[in-house]
């Protein structure tokens, strides 16, 4: 039996971070461009999760006829689109009006708080407070045991099937392969980094910063190599061993959030309207002088942010395997922490902040005595306060 260790805590932290990042992407848009510290964002996440539930598992909603069940991905797409329409409604009926009155940031905070109260209780009113699950195929965890032995490394995968732990795979890598693979992966990553980097000396703007791209390519190469070349086990008597638990669910969540982040970044950096959004965030008066219709920008911000919130909601509900009217609100604090930590001005910042928060939450739970597990969110918060004490404008500031 191999125990889950620090490595597993980090991997779990990245997954937690992805869930937070889903919410942080939308919140940072609203925060930065609409200039609303949106306390309703958590409840927008909840609403999104329940909108998908309407199509995925209507039988759970009291006043709805059980009209059948759409697969979760399809239901999620419909839910996200509907959430976008709701986002437009928030902007048109509430936030646009307050903006036209030049409401200050305190007023915006309290308005969003009022909206939060309404949204959460609409869910309670319509669905009630019971725990509900999505209708979806159950996904089993695969444990990857990494055993470092004198001859190299052995990997063993196990799964729980019908109550028993079954070994589903056993292979290994000799030392020479490990070393060679790592060198190759590093070389590929560095090559990509060099090829991608241009015009040294300026603050060149990239869609993906070269260092991050290089690192990501190196890690991906190592994983692909490891998956392709599986040699005989190198013994099962480990010097050091550690376990990581993973499932397709986890990988999907991370993948979807990273894809959303990348799509948002491409939209903001390369499209005309995306540029208009960034310009509005930077200097709203000047954007108007340049011919930007600020109302349209704000409308789109609320639509996109609500859709991202709904996406986060579906992922959260699927990950936690249950939905409650409070699910979003409990995420609100880590999401705010991530956004303030990452600086409110870029999708990458929001995701980076979320990952820092997620990893520190799970790693601290791993490192601290077991009864501290309930302080996961507190840890996120202490990090935020610590950072704000040193840099009151956030880790990367507003630029």
């Amino acid at each position: 039996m191999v125990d889950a260790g620090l490595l597993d805590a980090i991997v779990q932290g990245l997954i937690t971070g992805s869930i937070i990042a889903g919410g942080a992407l939308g919140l940072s848009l609203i925060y930065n461009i609409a200039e609303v510290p949106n306390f309703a964002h958590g409840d927008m996440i909840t609403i999104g999760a329940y909108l998908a539930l309407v199509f995925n598992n209507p039988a759970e909603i009291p006043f709805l006829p059980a009209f059948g069940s759409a697969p979760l991905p399809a239901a999620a797409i419909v839910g996200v689109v509907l959430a976008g329409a709701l986002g437009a409604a928030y902007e048109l009926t509430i936030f646009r009006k307050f903006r036209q009155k030049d409401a200050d940031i305190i007023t915006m905070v309290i308005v969003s708080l009022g909206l939060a109260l309404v949204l959460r209780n609409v869910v309670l009113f319509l669905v009630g407070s019971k725990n509900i699950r999505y209708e979806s195929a159950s996904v089993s965890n695969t444990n990857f045991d990494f055993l470092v032995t004198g001859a190299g490394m052995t990997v063993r995968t196990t799964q729980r099937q019908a109550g028993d732990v079954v070994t589903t795979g056993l292979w290994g890598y000799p030392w020479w392969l490990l070393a060679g693979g790592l060198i190759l992966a590093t070389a590929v990553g560095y090559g990509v980094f060099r090829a991608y980097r241009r015009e040294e000396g300026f603050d060149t703007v990239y869609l993906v910063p070269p260092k991050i791209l290089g690192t990501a390519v190196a890690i991906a190469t190592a994983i692909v190599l490891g998956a392709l070349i599986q040699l005989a086990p190198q013994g099962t008597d480990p010097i050091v061993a550690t376990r990581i638990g993973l499932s397709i669910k986890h990988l999907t969540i991370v993948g979807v959030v990273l894809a959303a982040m990348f799509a948002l970044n491409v939209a903001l950096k390369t499209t005309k309207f995306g540029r208009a959004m960034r310009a509005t965030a930077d200097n709203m008066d000047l954007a108007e002088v340049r011919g930007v219709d600020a109302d349209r920008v704000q409308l789109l911000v609320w639509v996109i942010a609500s859709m991202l919130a709904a996406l986060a909601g579906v992922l959260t509900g699927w990950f936690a395997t249950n939905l409650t009217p409070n699910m979003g609100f409990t995420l609100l604090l880590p999401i705010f922490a991530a956004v303030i930590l990452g600086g409110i001005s870029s999708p990458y910042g929001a995701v980076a902040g979320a990952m820092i928060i997620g990893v520190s939450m799970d790693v601290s739970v791993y490192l601290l005595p077991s009864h501290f597990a309930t302080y996961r969110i507190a840890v996120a918060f202490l990090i935020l306060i610590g950072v704000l004490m040193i840099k009151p404008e956030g880790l990367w500031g507003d630029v």
Partner: protein
Amino acid sequence: MSVLEIRGLDAGYGDLQILTDVDMTVGEGEYVTIVGPNGAGKSTAMKSVLGLTTYMDGSIALNGEDIAGTDTNTVVSKGVSYVPQSDNLFSTMTVRENLLMGAYSLEEVPEDRLREVLDRFPILEERQMQRAGTMSGGQQQMIAMGCALMVDPDVLLLDEPSAGLAPDLVVDMFDKIDEINDAGTAILMVEQNAKEALRRCDRGYVLVNGENAYEGPGTELLNDQEVRERFLGG
């Protein structure tokens, strides 16, 4: 026909009236300067054209069409371009992105226009990918000017273009403005550096306390004893 014609304009901010019965005209291809003491309403007059102030009374005609009280982005799409005195670029965006934002009101980015602007301000081409906020004051002023020129405006409004520039840059800046004007763009400029501005412009207005005080050809105002004593420091 004049490009811009302001008649009897009253405007201000909220309830506060700054301008009273202001008249101003900018002819096609003309270079007009507004001078006057601080707080006289020079910038307010300019912002009123763009719909950035509270319109109260009077008329503002652009190419014969009344635009008083119209939305800023509508005014801009009709051929007015504006360079604010400060906060006149998107500091978190690159120089290139700033220029593209300059052409935002057009369907697509006019490549030939972009070329022209880059030729006029070579430093901008060199630094295309740099964040605008990290550039020096003079360079930032060039970006702002370049952005405003992206739409090939009928009239270019400049709010104190020489503010904060070193003396040698000030001369450069005025030379650039001359060039732009020579290429056919009408210019309405507010300038604190009154002597230089009046020397170069076709016509000038002196605003005092939100009202027209004097007007005439630039050199004439420059040589007018009273104007000199009151506003040009003797």
